[in-house]
Protein backbone atom coordinates (compact mmCIF):
# COMPACT_ATOMS: atom_id res chain seq x y z
CA UNK A 1 0.00 0.00 0.00
CA UNK A 2 1.58 3.34 -0.96
CA UNK A 3 1.65 6.39 1.27
CA UNK A 4 -1.32 8.22 -0.29
CA UNK A 5 -3.68 5.29 -0.32
CA UNK A 6 -2.59 4.43 3.20
CA UNK A 7 -3.55 7.92 4.41
CA UNK A 8 -6.82 7.75 2.46
CA UNK A 9 -7.61 4.41 4.11
CA UNK A 10 -6.78 5.77 7.59
CA UNK A 11 -8.98 8.86 7.01
CA UNK A 12 -11.88 6.66 5.92
CA UNK A 13 -11.45 4.54 9.06
CA UNK A 14 -11.21 7.69 11.19
CA UNK A 15 -14.53 8.90 9.75
CA UNK A 16 -16.04 5.56 10.71
CA UNK A 17 -14.98 6.15 14.33
CA UNK A 18 -11.86 3.97 14.44
CA UNK A 19 -9.75 5.35 17.29
CA UNK A 20 -6.68 3.38 16.15
CA UNK A 21 -6.84 5.08 12.75
CA UNK A 22 -7.11 8.50 14.45
CA UNK A 23 -4.02 7.76 16.55
CA UNK A 24 -2.13 6.43 13.52
CA UNK A 25 -2.90 9.60 11.55
CA UNK A 26 -1.75 11.83 14.42
CA UNK A 27 1.52 9.92 14.82
CA UNK A 28 2.16 9.83 11.11
CA UNK A 29 1.34 13.42 10.15
CA UNK A 30 2.27 15.43 13.25
CA UNK A 31 6.03 15.62 12.53
CA UNK A 32 5.51 17.13 9.07
CA UNK A 33 2.78 19.50 10.28
CA UNK A 34 5.02 20.65 13.13
CA UNK A 35 7.87 21.22 10.67
CA UNK A 36 5.47 23.15 8.40
CA UNK A 37 4.71 25.56 11.26
CA UNK A 38 8.35 25.85 12.36
CA UNK A 39 9.51 26.61 8.81
CA UNK A 40 7.03 29.51 8.75
CA UNK A 41 9.09 31.14 11.51
CA UNK A 42 6.68 30.33 14.24
CA UNK A 43 8.28 29.73 17.63
CA UNK A 44 8.48 26.20 19.04
CA UNK A 45 5.89 26.96 21.71
CA UNK A 46 3.44 28.38 19.19
CA UNK A 47 4.12 25.52 16.76
CA UNK A 48 3.12 23.07 19.51
CA UNK A 49 -0.06 25.07 20.16
CA UNK A 50 -0.86 25.26 16.45
CA UNK A 51 -0.33 21.54 16.04
CA UNK A 52 -2.86 20.82 18.79
CA UNK A 53 -5.27 23.42 17.41
CA UNK A 54 -4.95 21.90 13.92
CA UNK A 55 -5.81 18.41 15.16
CA UNK A 56 -8.73 19.78 17.15
CA UNK A 57 -10.09 21.51 14.03
CA UNK A 58 -9.44 18.42 11.90
CA UNK A 59 -11.45 16.42 14.42
CA UNK A 60 -14.32 18.94 14.30
CA UNK A 61 -14.50 18.99 10.50
CA UNK A 62 -13.40 15.43 9.68
CA UNK A 63 -16.73 14.86 7.94
CA UNK A 64 -15.65 17.36 5.23
CA UNK A 65 -12.96 14.96 3.98
CA UNK A 66 -14.18 13.19 0.85
CA UNK A 67 -13.22 9.55 0.61
CA UNK A 68 -10.83 8.78 -2.20
CA UNK A 69 -9.49 12.33 -2.39
CA UNK A 70 -5.85 13.09 -1.44
CA UNK A 71 -5.53 13.69 2.31
CA UNK A 72 -2.61 16.13 2.37
CA UNK A 73 -4.31 19.07 0.54
CA UNK A 74 -7.30 18.77 2.88
CA UNK A 75 -5.05 18.61 5.93
CA UNK A 76 -2.78 21.48 4.89
CA UNK A 77 -5.73 23.69 3.92
CA UNK A 78 -6.96 23.34 7.53
CA UNK A 79 -3.43 23.87 8.92
CA UNK A 80 -3.14 27.11 6.87
CA UNK A 81 -6.48 28.25 8.23
CA UNK A 82 -5.28 27.63 11.80
CA UNK A 83 -2.04 29.48 11.08
CA UNK A 84 -3.86 32.49 9.62
CA UNK A 85 -6.05 32.65 12.73
CA UNK A 86 -2.88 32.49 14.81
CA UNK A 87 -1.36 35.44 12.95
CA UNK A 88 -4.49 37.46 13.53
CA UNK A 89 -4.48 36.73 17.24
CA UNK A 90 -0.75 37.02 17.88
CA UNK A 91 0.62 40.26 19.18
CA UNK A 92 3.14 41.55 16.65
CA UNK A 93 5.69 42.83 19.10
CA UNK A 94 5.55 39.62 21.11
CA UNK A 95 6.02 37.43 18.06
CA UNK A 96 8.99 39.54 16.95
CA UNK A 97 10.66 39.10 20.32
CA UNK A 98 10.07 35.36 20.23
CA UNK A 99 11.38 35.15 16.70
CA UNK A 100 14.64 36.60 17.90
CA UNK A 101 14.77 34.30 20.89
CA UNK A 102 13.59 31.06 19.38
CA UNK A 103 13.83 31.40 15.63
CA UNK A 104 16.53 30.15 13.33
CA UNK A 105 19.79 29.88 15.14
CA UNK A 106 22.18 31.87 12.98
CA UNK A 107 25.81 31.30 13.89
CA UNK A 108 27.99 34.35 13.56
CA UNK A 109 31.14 32.61 12.40
CA UNK A 110 29.51 29.80 10.45
CA UNK A 111 31.53 28.22 7.68
CA UNK A 112 30.69 26.31 4.47
CA UNK A 113 27.39 24.41 4.53
CA UNK A 114 26.50 25.80 7.95
CA UNK A 115 26.86 29.33 6.64
CA UNK A 116 24.75 28.49 3.61
CA UNK A 117 22.01 27.06 5.81
CA UNK A 118 22.11 30.12 8.01
CA UNK A 119 21.91 32.35 4.94
CA UNK A 120 19.04 30.23 3.60
CA UNK A 121 17.24 30.79 6.91
CA UNK A 122 17.65 34.55 6.53
CA UNK A 123 16.50 34.45 2.92
CA UNK A 124 13.50 32.26 3.69
CA UNK A 125 12.48 34.65 6.44
CA UNK A 126 12.58 37.48 3.91
CA UNK A 127 10.33 35.73 1.39
CA UNK A 128 6.66 36.71 1.14
CA UNK A 129 4.55 34.33 3.21
CA UNK A 130 2.71 32.95 0.17
CA UNK A 131 6.01 32.01 -1.53
CA UNK A 132 7.50 30.54 1.63
CA UNK A 133 4.56 28.26 2.33
CA UNK A 134 4.58 26.99 -1.26
CA UNK A 135 8.31 26.19 -0.98
CA UNK A 136 7.82 24.42 2.35
CA UNK A 137 4.91 22.33 1.05
CA UNK A 138 6.72 21.40 -2.16
CA UNK A 139 10.23 20.78 -0.91
CA UNK A 140 9.87 19.95 2.77
CA UNK A 141 6.47 18.21 2.92
CA UNK A 142 7.03 16.61 -0.49
CA UNK A 143 3.63 17.53 -1.92
CA UNK A 144 2.95 17.65 -5.67
CA UNK A 145 2.12 20.89 -7.52
CA UNK A 146 -1.52 19.84 -7.78
CA UNK A 147 -1.72 19.07 -4.05
CA UNK A 148 -0.18 22.44 -3.14
CA UNK A 149 -2.60 24.19 -5.51
CA UNK A 150 -5.53 22.47 -3.79
CA UNK A 151 -4.21 23.24 -0.30
CA UNK A 152 -3.67 26.91 -1.10
CA UNK A 153 -6.90 27.34 -3.15
CA UNK A 154 -4.93 28.48 -6.17
CA UNK A 155 -4.02 27.18 -9.61
CA UNK A 156 -1.03 25.00 -10.50
CA UNK A 157 0.28 27.90 -12.62
CA UNK A 158 0.17 30.24 -9.65
CA UNK A 159 2.02 27.70 -7.46
CA UNK A 160 4.70 27.29 -10.15
CA UNK A 161 5.08 31.05 -10.41
CA UNK A 162 5.44 31.49 -6.64
CA UNK A 163 7.99 28.66 -6.43
CA UNK A 164 9.93 30.11 -9.35
CA UNK A 165 10.05 33.58 -7.78
CA UNK A 166 11.08 32.14 -4.41
CA UNK A 167 13.89 30.14 -6.03
CA UNK A 168 15.07 33.22 -7.93
CA UNK A 169 15.32 35.14 -4.65
CA UNK A 170 17.06 32.25 -2.88
CA UNK A 171 19.46 31.70 -5.78
CA UNK A 172 20.43 35.35 -5.96
CA UNK A 173 20.88 35.61 -2.20
CA UNK A 174 22.96 32.46 -1.91
CA UNK A 175 25.07 33.41 -4.94
CA UNK A 176 25.65 36.82 -3.36
CA UNK A 177 26.82 35.11 -0.19
CA UNK A 178 29.25 32.91 -2.17
CA UNK A 179 30.69 35.94 -3.93
CA UNK A 180 31.08 37.80 -0.67
CA UNK A 181 32.79 34.85 1.05
CA UNK A 182 35.05 33.91 -1.89
CA UNK A 183 38.76 34.59 -1.27
CA UNK A 184 39.83 37.87 -2.88
CA UNK A 185 43.05 38.30 -4.82
CA UNK A 186 45.71 40.89 -3.98
CA UNK A 187 47.63 41.66 -0.81
CA UNK A 188 46.53 39.92 2.38
Amino acid sequence: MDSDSDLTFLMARYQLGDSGAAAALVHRLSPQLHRFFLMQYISRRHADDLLQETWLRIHQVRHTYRRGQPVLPWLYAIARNVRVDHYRKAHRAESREERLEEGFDIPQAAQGDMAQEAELGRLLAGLPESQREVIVMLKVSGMSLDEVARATSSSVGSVKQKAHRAYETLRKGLAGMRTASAPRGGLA
Partner: protein
Amino acid sequence: MKDQEIDNLLKRAAGAQPEVDAALVDGVARSLGSSARPVRPLPPAWLLGGALVLVCVSMAVAGAMILGPFGFRKMSAVDMAAIFPVLGLLIWVASALCAAEAVPGSPRPVAPWVLGVCGCLALAAVFGLLFHDYGTESFVAQGIRCLTAGLVQAVPASAGTWWVLRRGFAVNSLAAGFAQGALAGLAGVTMLEIHCPNFETWHVIVWHISVLPVSGALGMVVAWIGAHRSRGRAAPG
Protein backbone atom coordinates in the same frame (compact mmCIF):
# COMPACT_ATOMS: atom_id res chain seq x y z
CA MET B 1 23.74 27.86 -7.73
CA LYS B 2 21.56 24.99 -9.06
CA ASP B 3 18.00 24.24 -7.94
CA GLN B 4 19.16 20.86 -6.68
CA GLU B 5 21.59 22.53 -4.27
CA ILE B 6 18.81 24.76 -2.94
CA ASP B 7 16.57 21.67 -2.57
CA ASN B 8 19.27 19.97 -0.52
CA LEU B 9 19.77 23.05 1.65
CA LEU B 10 16.02 23.26 2.27
CA LYS B 11 15.87 19.60 3.26
CA ARG B 12 18.82 20.05 5.61
CA ALA B 13 17.20 23.15 7.14
CA ALA B 14 13.96 21.20 7.66
CA GLY B 15 15.89 18.33 9.21
CA ALA B 16 17.62 20.72 11.58
CA GLN B 17 14.28 21.83 13.05
CA PRO B 18 13.53 20.43 16.52
CA GLU B 19 11.46 17.26 16.52
CA VAL B 20 7.89 17.41 17.72
CA ASP B 21 7.48 16.45 21.37
CA ALA B 22 6.46 12.76 21.52
CA ALA B 23 4.39 13.34 24.68
CA LEU B 24 2.43 16.06 22.90
CA VAL B 25 1.70 13.76 19.95
CA ASP B 26 0.68 10.92 22.28
CA GLY B 27 -1.65 13.30 24.15
CA VAL B 28 -3.30 14.49 20.94
CA ALA B 29 -3.64 10.91 19.66
CA ARG B 30 -5.24 9.79 22.95
CA SER B 31 -7.62 12.74 22.96
CA LEU B 32 -8.74 12.21 19.35
CA GLY B 33 -8.92 8.45 19.76
CA SER B 34 -11.15 8.70 22.83
CA SER B 35 -13.62 11.00 21.07
CA ALA B 36 -13.59 9.30 17.66
CA ARG B 37 -17.20 8.68 16.65
CA PRO B 38 -18.56 7.78 13.23
CA VAL B 39 -19.41 10.85 11.13
CA ARG B 40 -21.45 11.16 7.96
CA PRO B 41 -19.17 12.49 5.20
CA LEU B 42 -20.34 15.35 3.02
CA PRO B 43 -22.17 14.38 -0.17
CA PRO B 44 -20.13 14.33 -3.40
CA ALA B 45 -19.26 17.67 -5.01
CA TRP B 46 -21.64 17.14 -7.95
CA LEU B 47 -24.56 16.57 -5.58
CA LEU B 48 -23.80 19.70 -3.53
CA GLY B 49 -23.38 21.75 -6.72
CA GLY B 50 -26.58 20.32 -8.20
CA ALA B 51 -28.52 21.12 -5.04
CA LEU B 52 -27.23 24.71 -5.15
CA VAL B 53 -28.27 25.11 -8.80
CA LEU B 54 -31.71 23.73 -7.98
CA VAL B 55 -32.14 26.06 -4.98
CA CYS B 56 -31.10 29.18 -6.93
CA VAL B 57 -33.11 28.47 -10.08
CA SER B 58 -36.24 27.49 -8.16
CA MET B 59 -35.98 30.57 -5.91
CA ALA B 60 -35.48 32.85 -8.94
CA VAL B 61 -38.43 31.35 -10.84
CA ALA B 62 -40.66 31.42 -7.76
CA GLY B 63 -39.75 35.07 -7.08
CA ALA B 64 -40.44 36.04 -10.69
CA MET B 65 -43.79 34.20 -10.68
CA ILE B 66 -44.85 36.04 -7.54
CA LEU B 67 -43.96 39.43 -9.07
CA GLY B 68 -45.17 38.46 -12.56
CA PRO B 69 -43.14 37.17 -15.53
CA PHE B 70 -43.58 40.36 -17.61
CA GLY B 71 -40.05 40.40 -18.98
CA PHE B 72 -40.23 36.76 -20.07
CA ARG B 73 -43.48 37.43 -21.98
CA LYS B 74 -41.90 40.42 -23.76
CA MET B 75 -38.72 38.55 -24.76
CA SER B 76 -38.15 37.11 -28.23
CA ALA B 77 -36.98 33.52 -28.68
CA VAL B 78 -33.49 34.82 -29.53
CA ASP B 79 -33.37 36.85 -26.31
CA MET B 80 -34.33 33.79 -24.28
CA ALA B 81 -31.89 31.54 -26.12
CA ALA B 82 -29.04 33.97 -25.43
CA ILE B 83 -29.78 35.17 -21.89
CA PHE B 84 -30.87 32.06 -19.98
CA PRO B 85 -28.06 29.70 -21.07
CA VAL B 86 -25.48 32.33 -20.02
CA LEU B 87 -27.20 32.78 -16.66
CA GLY B 88 -27.46 29.01 -16.30
CA LEU B 89 -23.75 28.59 -17.03
CA LEU B 90 -22.82 31.29 -14.49
CA ILE B 91 -25.09 29.72 -11.85
CA TRP B 92 -23.51 26.33 -12.50
CA VAL B 93 -19.95 27.71 -12.16
CA ALA B 94 -20.89 29.70 -9.04
CA SER B 95 -22.49 26.60 -7.51
CA ALA B 96 -19.39 24.52 -8.20
CA LEU B 97 -17.26 27.27 -6.66
CA CYS B 98 -19.45 27.47 -3.54
CA ALA B 99 -19.29 23.70 -3.13
CA ALA B 100 -15.47 23.80 -3.51
CA GLU B 101 -15.10 26.65 -1.00
CA ALA B 102 -17.01 24.64 1.60
CA VAL B 103 -14.61 21.68 1.46
CA PRO B 104 -10.94 22.22 2.43
CA GLY B 105 -8.43 21.24 -0.24
CA SER B 106 -10.98 21.11 -3.08
CA PRO B 107 -9.92 22.26 -6.54
CA ARG B 108 -11.70 25.54 -7.39
CA PRO B 109 -13.18 25.90 -10.88
CA VAL B 110 -12.32 29.63 -10.87
CA ALA B 111 -11.24 32.21 -8.32
CA PRO B 112 -14.20 34.11 -6.79
CA TRP B 113 -13.03 37.46 -8.20
CA VAL B 114 -12.80 35.91 -11.68
CA LEU B 115 -16.39 34.74 -11.37
CA GLY B 116 -17.47 38.25 -10.35
CA VAL B 117 -15.61 40.08 -13.12
CA CYS B 118 -16.23 37.56 -15.92
CA GLY B 119 -19.88 37.15 -14.89
CA CYS B 120 -20.51 40.89 -15.13
CA LEU B 121 -18.64 41.17 -18.45
CA ALA B 122 -20.43 38.17 -20.00
CA LEU B 123 -23.85 39.49 -18.99
CA ALA B 124 -22.99 43.02 -20.19
CA ALA B 125 -21.89 41.61 -23.56
CA VAL B 126 -25.11 39.60 -23.98
CA PHE B 127 -27.36 42.49 -22.93
CA GLY B 128 -25.41 44.94 -25.09
CA LEU B 129 -25.83 42.69 -28.14
CA LEU B 130 -29.53 42.00 -27.60
CA PHE B 131 -30.99 45.28 -26.39
CA HIS B 132 -30.71 48.46 -28.48
CA ASP B 133 -33.06 50.87 -26.73
CA TYR B 134 -30.61 53.48 -25.42
CA GLY B 135 -33.26 55.60 -23.66
CA THR B 136 -32.72 56.38 -20.00
CA GLU B 137 -36.21 57.30 -18.83
CA SER B 138 -36.49 57.25 -15.00
CA PHE B 139 -33.05 55.69 -15.05
CA VAL B 140 -32.30 55.98 -11.34
CA ALA B 141 -35.82 55.53 -9.92
CA GLN B 142 -36.53 52.38 -11.95
CA GLY B 143 -33.00 51.15 -11.50
CA ILE B 144 -33.10 51.39 -7.71
CA ARG B 145 -36.37 49.44 -7.73
CA CYS B 146 -34.80 46.64 -9.79
CA LEU B 147 -31.59 46.59 -7.74
CA THR B 148 -33.61 46.38 -4.52
CA ALA B 149 -35.87 43.63 -5.90
CA GLY B 150 -32.80 41.66 -7.06
CA LEU B 151 -31.10 41.98 -3.67
CA VAL B 152 -34.29 41.06 -1.80
CA GLN B 153 -34.53 37.99 -4.04
CA ALA B 154 -30.92 37.15 -3.12
CA VAL B 155 -31.81 36.90 0.59
CA PRO B 156 -33.85 33.65 0.42
CA ALA B 157 -31.46 32.31 -2.21
CA SER B 158 -28.50 32.87 0.11
CA ALA B 159 -30.43 31.29 2.98
CA GLY B 160 -30.99 28.27 0.74
CA THR B 161 -27.31 28.04 -0.23
CA TRP B 162 -26.30 28.38 3.42
CA TRP B 163 -28.63 25.49 4.30
CA VAL B 164 -27.16 23.27 1.57
CA LEU B 165 -23.59 24.06 2.69
CA ARG B 166 -24.23 24.23 6.45
CA ARG B 167 -22.02 21.18 7.19
CA GLY B 168 -19.12 22.50 5.13
CA PHE B 169 -16.03 24.27 6.47
CA ALA B 170 -14.69 27.29 4.60
CA VAL B 171 -10.96 27.79 5.14
CA ASN B 172 -11.25 31.20 3.48
CA SER B 173 -14.45 32.68 4.84
CA LEU B 174 -14.26 35.89 2.75
CA ALA B 175 -13.89 33.99 -0.54
CA ALA B 176 -16.69 31.61 0.46
CA GLY B 177 -18.88 34.55 1.47
CA PHE B 178 -18.30 36.29 -1.85
CA ALA B 179 -19.03 33.10 -3.81
CA GLN B 180 -22.28 32.47 -1.94
CA GLY B 181 -23.30 36.12 -2.28
CA ALA B 182 -22.54 36.05 -6.01
CA LEU B 183 -24.57 32.86 -6.46
CA ALA B 184 -27.51 34.41 -4.62
CA GLY B 185 -27.01 37.56 -6.72
CA LEU B 186 -27.26 35.46 -9.90
CA ALA B 187 -30.61 34.18 -8.62
CA GLY B 188 -31.59 37.84 -8.26
CA VAL B 189 -30.44 38.67 -11.81
CA THR B 190 -32.36 35.65 -13.17
CA MET B 191 -35.50 36.77 -11.37
CA LEU B 192 -35.12 40.29 -12.83
CA GLU B 193 -34.70 38.93 -16.38
CA ILE B 194 -37.93 36.98 -16.03
CA HIS B 195 -39.81 39.76 -14.29
CA CYS B 196 -38.59 43.18 -15.52
CA PRO B 197 -40.12 44.36 -18.81
CA ASN B 198 -37.78 47.37 -19.07
CA PHE B 199 -35.39 46.47 -21.90
CA GLU B 200 -33.52 49.78 -22.04
CA THR B 201 -29.89 48.85 -22.62
CA TRP B 202 -28.34 50.93 -19.83
CA HIS B 203 -31.04 49.99 -17.34
CA VAL B 204 -30.38 46.28 -17.87
CA ILE B 205 -26.59 46.61 -18.01
CA VAL B 206 -26.21 48.90 -15.00
CA TRP B 207 -28.97 47.94 -12.60
CA HIS B 208 -29.65 44.28 -13.32
CA ILE B 209 -26.01 43.27 -13.49
CA SER B 210 -25.04 45.26 -10.39
CA VAL B 211 -27.06 42.82 -8.27
CA LEU B 212 -24.24 40.28 -8.81
CA PRO B 213 -21.27 42.28 -7.40
CA VAL B 214 -23.35 44.03 -4.72
CA SER B 215 -24.73 40.71 -3.48
CA GLY B 216 -21.21 39.21 -3.60
CA ALA B 217 -19.83 42.11 -1.55
CA LEU B 218 -22.67 41.78 0.97
CA GLY B 219 -21.93 38.05 1.23
CA MET B 220 -18.32 38.90 1.99
CA VAL B 221 -19.33 41.41 4.68
CA VAL B 222 -21.67 38.88 6.33
CA ALA B 223 -18.90 36.25 6.24
CA TRP B 224 -16.43 38.71 7.76
CA ILE B 225 -18.84 39.57 10.58
CA GLY B 226 -19.50 35.86 11.17
CA ALA B 227 -15.78 35.03 11.28
CA HIS B 228 -15.08 38.01 13.56
CA ARG B 229 -17.79 36.91 15.98
CA SER B 230 -16.69 33.29 16.04
CA ARG B 231 -13.09 34.40 16.71
CA GLY B 232 -14.38 36.61 19.52
CA ARG B 233 -16.20 33.65 21.06
CA ALA B 234 -13.15 31.41 20.68
CA ALA B 235 -10.75 33.93 22.29
CA PRO B 236 -10.00 33.22 25.95
CA GLY B 237 -11.46 35.58 28.55
